[in-house]
């Protein structure tokens, strides 16, 4: 007996869940504010572009996006299971492929900024 590899994806899921529960409510508020034309000064395009250009900014954005993707992927896998679709291997492969792809694309786009 050994510890199952599920430990890895669950670890990412848990870390992502912890992070997103703090970050996403704030993002929703900011989204609503922005859509009503009240853009906070630090979120003006130039300011935010500068943030995303710095290595600290890139790292922050990468961690948030990477963990959110893996959290969402694992959550979706469990939801599908709970809805009665019993194709765990296939579902797992699909959602984690999307998460991996998203991770690679995130890194790529952040590096091009």
């Amino acid at each position, binding site marked *: 007996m050994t510890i199952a590899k599920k*430990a890895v994806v669950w670890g990412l899921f848990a870390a992502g869940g912890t992070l997103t529960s703090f970050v996403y409510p704030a993002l929703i508020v900011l989204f609503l504010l922005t859509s009503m034309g009240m853009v906070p000064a630090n979120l003006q395009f130039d300011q935010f572009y500068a943030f995303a250009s710095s290595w600290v900014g890139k790292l922050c954005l990468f961690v948030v996006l990477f963990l959110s993707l893996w959290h969402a992927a694992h959550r979706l896998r469990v939801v599908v299971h709970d809805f009665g679709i019993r194709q765990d291997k296939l579902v797992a492969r699909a959602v984690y492929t999307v998460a991996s792809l998203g991770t690679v694309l995130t890194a790529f786009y952040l590096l091009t900024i």
Partner: protein
Amino acid sequence: MSTRNLELEVMRYDPEKDEAPYFQKYTVPCPEEWVILDALNYVRDELDTTLAFRWSCHMMVCGSCGMMVNGEPSLTCKTFIRDLPDKVRIEPLENFPIERDLIVVFDDVIQKLHKVQPYIMRKDAPPEDKEFTQTPAQLMKFKQLTMCINCMCCYAACPQYGLDNNFIGPAALALAHRYNLDNRDQGKSERLDILADYDGVWECSFVGACSEVCPKHVDPAAALQQMKVDGAVEYWKQKLGMTGEKK
């Protein structure tokens, strides 16, 4: 004292005679302070001596009288008539094979309780003429988990166990966590190899029904989530060779 007529729909099944389980109705005059177990005993004493069900203590200690009461896994000695409508349906605990009437076969869970090594494991010999000590604070870390009376209501509530009974399940995992948290125990790493294997904690999708139905407020769902963290940490420890043991 007021008495109310309760209509009990009780599931009956004798595998040697019946092709399939069926419901039988009994009307029981119940004083309001009765619990469902009293009503069942009335049925057996006064109406139908063939009804089979388990019970022993009538005081939430023995864990024998778990049944489905209106679809919810409950200790019938704790389920008061006054909290129920006039019609009550009693079934054997969900997710288990029926032995007869309201009695189910627990063999599967008993095996699992053995499997998770629920005892103190030490790498060294016990101190001579002394016992391993434990402070009240160290005891408090896991005391809640020692309250389990093995009524198996959590297994009847668990949708994952219902889908796949290879899953070790709530009570056995919570019991294992009780030993993982015990300061006198040194077997956590060894135990996690079983608990965090494929049929272990990862099968839990944190529905939380086990904790909701637990008559002793053990909260197995919380124990399982804590064990997932332990399992994830232990995985990387083993991969990075930080356990100081095999692997």
